[in-house]
């Protein structure tokens, strides 16, 4: 049983890692690099109520 659990852990790890890498590559292709890497650092505008509701939901 334990060796089956070990194999399951490997398979699950590989699946999750592949999903992240695939998504990372997809985002890099779909979006302009400047857009992705010029995030605003400090935005003084507080989160709107919509954001708060989204967050809680």
């Amino acid at each position, binding site marked *: 049983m334990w060796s089956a659990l070990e194999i399951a852990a490997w398979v699950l790890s590989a699946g*999750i890692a592949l999903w992240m890498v695939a998504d*990372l590559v997809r985002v890099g292709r779909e979006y302009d690099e400047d857009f*992705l890497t010029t995030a605003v*650092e*400090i935005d003084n505008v507080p989160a709107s109520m919509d954001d708060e509701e989204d967050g809680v939901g």
Partner: protein
Amino acid sequence: MQDAAPGPARQEEHLSLLKVLSPVHIWALGVGIVLVGEFMGWNFTVEKGGMYGSLIAAWVVGLLYTSLVMINSEITSTIPAAGGQYAQAKHTIGPLMAFNVGLYLTMAYTMLEAANANVLSYLLTELSGLLGSSEGLSAYPFATLAIVALAFLNYRGVFTSLSINFVITAFAFLTIIALFIGIQAWNPGANMFLDGLTGEVANGLPYGWIGVIAAFQFGMWYYLGIEGTAQAAEECRSASRSIPLGSMAGIVTLIIAATLTWYVCAGLLPWQYLGTAITPLFDAARVADSDVLIILLLLGTLCATLASANGCINDASRAWFSMGRDRYLPAWFGAVHPRYRTPFRAIVFLIPVAIAFAILPVLLNNPTLLSTVITFSILSGLLGYSFMVPNFFRFRKLWPLGAVRRGYVLPFHPLPAVALGLLSAMVFFATFLGYGTVLLSILAFYFLASIWFVVRRYKYVKRGAQFTAPLPRPKGY
């Protein structure tokens, strides 16, 4: 699983990290990273300094961290940027110190995450033994799964990952309370044996005061990582409220947890055993001979380990991301996911690094490598703390009280900053006593990294990135 992000961003907008966190999440991040130190690690103070040495270390190092949290709260509530202490150093001192602090933060949290994954696989191996398995469970797949799964959680959104951290951290904390209640610790005659703490002084302080100082190094385990609350400032709905509230509540929780942990373990386990135990709270539950407490403390240890690894992924990735955003590192790392609004490339990049440090001690069959990894993490944190002292003096000089709106004002300045400096020096000395060679190696590593930064990287740094907070022009500029 996915945070309720406001849909994929349009390319004409500017991306930013999602602002959804509240004081509860900040508490969960800070306490979550640290609480594992109550379940394991703190007890090495007992080996160095005896039972009373451990208690003194808990409270003196607690003072160091209380000063640190207060200083952090004032600066971060004014400069609420991802990267925390990195962003502080960037604004107050300059690029070289900021680069060093950013590197300390990334290394400290990644190494701690690796140690957590390693411990998690050890706990699962023990669990399989308790369930009657005669096969030795391999540590690799579970350490790897823990890191990858938690990274996935962080990749998909900060709100969910820190909400989960809140639940598992609160549960782990409650298991310590449950142990306290379960053994009726308020009644020393019921289940506890406190004879070892009375009578001759040697019972509580077997190595005298030098032992107490030596214990300070491991005393950091009670609190190491609480400063990580600053990393989430950019993702708070209101950083000026959330960071001071969450961080202060966090350090209060930890001081209570440290004292309870010490007291319960001191009453249930002989100090000679306690000083070398791997899972002291779990062992205390086993001595209490209650199946419910044993299961609770095993689950508490597992939850604390997971919460710590999760918080470390959050903090290491923010530090790495913010250095990429300012071009201290390649800009590629400074990307924000257009849908989940997380620093996704920094999160993914640090996965193999953490896995390597987690499984290397097992792969090379060298358990001392794990303690080196942990020491690397502790010393990186300590270097960051000592740098916060000049940072804070400079911050007050550049933006004196009244010059900018602060979410929190540090009382009794400069006493907390002076205390932080003196106590950090004392812990450095304690570390030198135990790990002199490792300390010098780590200093050499950071020195070489600084040379690389000055010679090869500085030319790429965004010149306008030193003052990115919406603060008035600093005094004297």
